[in-house]
């Protein structure tokens, strides 16, 4: 959290609270409760996290600790039980295209082509652009994820990895303020996963969209992130520890693996997960 102290500029939100202007996403005393017949089940409690502009955060933690719950609350798909979430000082009230989501399954509309899937979002976000401009945006991002030859292929005809590429293109093409990634590569084989990590980080280097990504993969967490957030196991999960990854960007897999601190970081994360 030391980055906070360096912020001098502030902005004032709707409700008059002052925020350091570098904070993109602010989770404050976040709480999530699921009512059950046996009483309330508290998934998250007192969860505080500030994510800076242009920061890439990865979140690791044991299965079922509430990572996905937290992410879907940020996305606005899951109601907040207590505390609040703000994007640039504006409280989150529901889903919206300022927070792009890449889901675990590609979630493409199978009856649409790759291009149509990306356009679905682009048309929504840039309603005043001409048809050609919107198409160009969609094509640009499909090109970026390496799908030049597959614009007009039906989503269902694409492999899982290719579908997730379209998912990445769709998320970036709507130019969100925050990108939320829910284990986007969890269902892929390790070779494809590596490829997609490279693609993701390449686009991200260019666009610098604040990103929050859940992962189970320690190496993935280190390779992609500026900070790795470790969550404690539920119930009442909160932030357990935060690890700053001080590798230079742009990174390559090779430079990361060869870096002296890499195994230190890795050990830190694994130690946390094993206790």
């Amino acid at each position, binding site marked *: 959290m030391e980055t906070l102290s360096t912020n001098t500029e502030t902005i004032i939100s709707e409700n008059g609270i002052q925020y350091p202007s570098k904070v993109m996403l602010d989770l404050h005393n976040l709480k999530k409760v699921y009512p059950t017949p046996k009483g309330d089940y508290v998934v998250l409690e007192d969860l505080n996290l500030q994510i800076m502009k242009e920061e890439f955060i990865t979140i690791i933690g044991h299965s079922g600790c509430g990572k996905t719950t937290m992410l879907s609350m940020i996305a606005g798909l899951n109601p907040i039980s207590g505390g609040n979430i703000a994007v640039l000082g504006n409280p989150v009230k529901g889903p919206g295209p300022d927070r792009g989501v890449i*889901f675990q399954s590609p979630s493409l509309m199978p009856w649409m082509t790759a291009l149509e899937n990306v356009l679905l979002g682009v048309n929504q976000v840039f309603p005043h652009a001409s048809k050609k401009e919107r198409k160009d945006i969609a094509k640009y991002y499909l090109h970026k994820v390496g799908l030049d030859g597959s614009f007009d292929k039906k989503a269902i005809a694409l492999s899982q990895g290719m579908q997730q590429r379209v998912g990445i293109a769709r998320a970036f093409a709507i130019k969100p303020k925050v990108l939320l990634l829910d284990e986007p590569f969890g269902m892929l084989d390790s070779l494809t996963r590596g490829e997609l990590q490279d693609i993701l980080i390449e686009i991200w280097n260019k666009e610098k969209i604040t990103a929050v990504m859940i992962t189970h993969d320690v190496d993935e967490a280190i390779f992609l992130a500026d900070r790795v957030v470790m969550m404690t196991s539920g119930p009442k999960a909160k932030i357990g520890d935060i690890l700053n990854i001080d590798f230079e960007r742009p990174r390559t897999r090779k430079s990361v693996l060869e870096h002296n601190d890499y195994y230190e970081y890795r050990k830190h994360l694994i130690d946390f997960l094993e206790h």
Partner: protein
Amino acid sequence: MKQSITLSKITQLMGFGFLKPITVLFSGKPQREDFINFLKKIIVPLLSIVLFVGIWQAGASALYNKEANYKIEKALADQGQVAADEMKACIASGEISCQPNTLPSPAQVWTSFKTLIKDHKVISADKLAFKEKTAAMNAKRVAAGKDPITYTGRPSFVDQIVTSLKTVFAGFLLALLIAVPIGIVIGLSETLRSSFNWLIQIFKPVSPVVWLLLVFMIVKTLTKDSNSDSAFIISFISVGLCAMWATLVNTAMGVSSVDKDYINVAKVLKLGPMQKVFKVILPSSLPLIFTGLRITLSVAWMVLIAIELLAQSPGLGSFVWEEFQNGAIDSNSKIIVAMFIIGIIGFLLDRIMLTIQNMVSFNKNEGV
């Protein structure tokens, strides 16, 4: 080569995949497996047809003998030995008046089929002649503002089929226009779905006959002072009402069970309600809607015969009923002909729906 590819693709799409071994055998170089395939998929099914006809023939001749013996014994008991011998000779001679009336043999049915075709040709020629004869006069009548004279002769078997098809399509269209929009609306709203559920559950199992009577009550009054064809209106509305439930239930189910991921995507992109329905919900429920429509069409065809029979509306149903009442020597075999025709048309209608369903369904790898 290209032609044979498209041919096999079309047969595949229409669910006539069983014809593939033939197309394979006649296109390119057949392999040993192709011959085995041919044997399995063509020869064995053909044998099953032969077996079917054989059993039918045996059953028909057993029934024929039983009926004949009964007739002879009855003559013996009522009128004595002489009458019994006469009856025996009469049956053996093939005299029409004393033939036992029972299940017709395949050969008799085939003959009746040919008779019906011949009859159709005669009636068509007759109709054509009538049209030519009255053409000039009708033109005058129309010019004078009177109704033209129409042919009022007996409809042929083929005319009855056409009438039935018209009725079933009108009924199907009605079912589609009622059930799909309502299905979408109640599929979208949990509240509406639970409020209308009782209505669907109660009316779904109601018999076609009762629907017919209900429609009759209403249409009779509505068409009292118009000279529209009320028999046709009654039968197609009844068919539509009987058959629409499958589509209604399937549409509502398809719309309400859209993959949650798609809904989440729509939420994140903040699609408007119209876009959400037309771009996400409808396309993803199309396969289920079409499953419903397919059931609807086959139910419509099935109940049509019963409804035509009761509504006195022209068509295959009244053809069957008239033949049954008629009791002529070839009436039974004409009924069997109608049975086969009904079955074959029903099968073809189902295949057409299946083809459309496969074309709109996104679960197929069309891109490959």
